[in-house]
């Protein structure tokens, strides 16, 4: 830990996850190693079924690694969710019987903190994600993109240092998806959280990230690391630049199914 430097918030060492199956053990991810520093936006890019979500589940404490180790903030994660992380899922996973505001308070209630202490922050977050007037609405009165923004606000309510995002925009239509990428970048510009972002979209990964880690499938392992030197804030126009196209091209060559 001391050798790794003070700003390191996430470390994965030679981690493998093996699932039992009727035809013998199946290796989901194999010998993964990576680290992340505070303030970084890192994407894990790979084809469906390459074990991206397995890695994220281990980091979220929802699943145990078969060998190797994952640590958050210098402490090993072993099947116990860490309080200093937020998580955004592919589907918003809001509770339909609670209002938007009550949904955002779920991490607060779960950690037995006082809602009153976080009320201002909840409203500030709703404003940040562009839904200031929707606190009292129910999730099914919102569109898919709006629901996902509520999910984003929920993941940030307890001010976690790191947010894990598991293909958060994959269920949205292409237009909404692009707009959400721009908005996410704006939001993070203000809130300064670190993000580990799982995606199978090359342009999305390049547009959002400081660093992209490419994974191969079965078993999932890291095959390439690409730094994205594009200046922030990035507008959608950046996607038309030669540098952007060159980075995407490099990743696309590695993209084998």
């Amino acid at each position, binding site marked *: 830990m001391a050798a790794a430097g003070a700003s390191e918030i996430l470390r994965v060492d030679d981690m493998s996850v093996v699932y039992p199956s009727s035809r013998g053990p199946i290796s989901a991810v194999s010998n993964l190693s990576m680290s992340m520093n505070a303030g970084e936006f890192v994407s894990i890019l790979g084809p469906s079924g390459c074990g991206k979500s397995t890695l994220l589940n281990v980091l979220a404490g929802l699943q145990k690694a078969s060998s190797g180790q994952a640590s958050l903030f210098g402490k090993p994660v072993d099947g116990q969710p860490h309080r200093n992380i937020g998580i955004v899922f592919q589907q918003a996973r809001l509770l339909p019987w609670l209002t938007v505001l009550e949904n955002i308070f779920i*991490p607060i209630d*779960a950690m037995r903190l006082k809602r009153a202490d976080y009320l201002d922050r909840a409203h500030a977050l709703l404003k940040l994600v562009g839904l200031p007037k929707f606190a009292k609405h129910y999730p099914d009165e919102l569109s898919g993109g709006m629901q996902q923004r509520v999910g984003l606000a929920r993941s940030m309510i307890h001010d976690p240092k790191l947010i894990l995002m598991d293909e958060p925009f994959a269920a949205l239509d292409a237009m909404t998806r692009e707009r959400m990428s721009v908005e996410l970048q704006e939001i993070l510009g203000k809130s300064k959280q670190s993000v580990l972002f799982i995606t199978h979209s090359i342009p999305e990964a390049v547009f959002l990230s400081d660093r992209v880690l490419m994974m191969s499938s079965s078993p999932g392992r890291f095959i390439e690391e690409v730094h994205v030197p594009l200046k922030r804030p990035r507008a959608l126009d950046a996607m038309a630049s030669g540098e952007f196209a060159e980075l995407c091209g490099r990743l696309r060559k590695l993209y084998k199914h």
Partner: protein
Amino acid sequence: MSDSTNTVALTAHNQTTPSFYSFERISSVLYPTITLAALLIIWQTSVAYFNVPQYIFPSLTDVLRELWVGFVDGGTLYPHLAYTLKSALTGYLLGCGAAIVVGALLAESRAFEKFVYPLIIGLQSTPKIAIAPLLMVWLGYGLSSKIAMVAMMCFFPLFVNTVQGIRQTDPALLNMMRAFSAPTWLTFFRVKMFAATSNIFAGLQITIVFAFIGAIVSEFLGSSEGLGYLIQSAMANFNTPVMFAAIVTLIALSLIGTAFVQWVHRKVAFWDRTMRNKGR
């Protein structure tokens, strides 16, 4: 920044709710009423036409007269109605309350699920009516044996519905709660109980009908009051108009009970789309 999508989502949602005087709403009541009226006319005319004796099949007017005497002019049916309602509703509340509490406890306990749940599923296949005479032996011929019978008839279906409803909770939502370090009790009261609501109400709707069946059956076996007793004593005198009047009253009770449970369901489970589409 997303106002166009917002309004689309909101208006689309409003349109799924039919207005109170919409054509669908009126016709959904009107069409079956026409069928019912036709059946009643056929009943009345064919009984008169074929000269069916009253003790075999009374005419519609005989039954209506009996209902008039029973409820308006004399009120002889009221004590029986009150007795049956008392046993059915008390038993319903006790049986259903127990089913929800025990179901919730069991769905949360692995050990109980392994050791006891299969037995309860097995027990559910016993015809409860066969146990009614035993309840008479144990609890006597008064109200308590009827309440016990009703409670037992209501308990099992609702119990199974409650357990299944809680177990059917979307695993994605449970995973979400876990990721945010939610304690078990919070997940239970904030997620599982709500997820089970529709299943529980489906059970409450079935069991309200079972409650009246249970009450009537136990009154058949031995009682000096109640609609079931009335039917049985009328049978001894071949007084079919009274039997019909009692049966019509029971049908009305079941319908009102079912409608009431549905109404409560809509009020409670406001988030449930399947309920909302049925109008309000």
